[in-house]
């Protein structure tokens, strides 16, 4: 790993918003790295998953795609989405109590500021789900087919449920 790494920002959920948004991302780095743990509150101790969509620079056009392999119910699976309006591999977990669970991910974005490249992403993620093990253990190559430098990244619960205050995403710049 490159040695020149800077923490750009770290954001928590607010318990009142379904979006965690990184804005005004500086163009002073070569690559970006995100780490996150996400959940939204629900009563009880059972876990279920809700998709967290990812959008760049506020773009909700059909410029996104995902190609991923994952496991569910002891079975290897694959999925490809094209002409999508968001990236889809990440989930958050709906849970509460001492057995609280989170959807966890690591997202790497090389060349985020390069205006000659479509943007590509390497994503790892996973989340617990009651009775069904580590659902959505996933590795994805995803894309945003736009040339613009990335200056904003939005993580949004697709069901508009709010992220808890202990949900947290860190953003790093790599030179």
């Amino acid at each position, binding site marked *: 790993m490159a*040695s020149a790494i800077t923490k750009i920002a770290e954001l928590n959920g607010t318990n009142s918003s379904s979006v965690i948004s990184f804005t005004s991302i500086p163009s002073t780095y070569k690559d970006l790295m995100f780490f996150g*743990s996400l959940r939204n509150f629900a009563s009880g101790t059972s876990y279920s998953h809700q998709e967290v969509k990812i959008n760049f620079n506020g773009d909700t056009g059909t410029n996104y795609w995902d190609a991923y392999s994952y496991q569910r119910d002891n079975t290897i699976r694959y999925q490809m989405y094209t002409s999508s309006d968001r990236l889809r591999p990440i989930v958050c977990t709906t849970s509460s109590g001492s*057995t609280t669970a*989170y959807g966890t991910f690591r997202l790497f974005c090389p060349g985020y500021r390069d205006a000659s490249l479509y943007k590509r992403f390497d994503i790892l*993620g996973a*989340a617990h789900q009651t009775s069904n093990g*580590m*659902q959505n*253990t996933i590795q994805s190559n995803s894309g945003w087919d736009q040339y613009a430098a990335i200056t904003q990244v939005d993580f949004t619960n697709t069901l508009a449920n709010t992220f808890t205050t202990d949900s*947290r995403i860190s953003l790093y710049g790599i030179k």
Partner: protein
Amino acid sequence: MADFEVISEVTLGSSTSQWVIADISQDYTHLELDLHLRATTVNNGTYPGGMTFNTFTGSNHYGYGVVYSNNSDNGSASDVGPDGVNRIQYGPRISGDGTASDSYAINKMFIANYSSTAILHKQILWQQSAATGDSSGGSWFMGFGAGAKTNCGAITQLTIWPDWGTSGQEIKAGSCYTLSGWK
């Protein structure tokens, strides 16, 4: 303090049945662990390693999910949990010691928010590959996965070991790891 630092680089001096990474600094937000592992097993295969967090070794602590392929399997998956097993099974991959080439399985692992005392559910994500073959053939393995423990405090210790049900196996001297922290 830099925002990304190597916490420790260790090469195993003597083979051991259990490798403990203890007293992990709490000065960072996320951990990255690069493991190169070889077992004393005289075999060309590659094998799963077990992993635990801190000193949690009782039953019903952990869950995991893995996706992999190898020289005899085009693709499979396995998962257990949550709280279904006493360790993260199929965690770090370990190469056997039977091949002429001195190869090691490669594991790149991440633990988001490892030092948090608010996020009690700790998950480790990984990508891994291994090949123990030479020009006459051999074994290979590649995969990715995740392990988790619910109701876990900050992670201060990781323990890994050969975990394929045959007693007497050890992690071989010369195996190494680099533990790094993301601030």
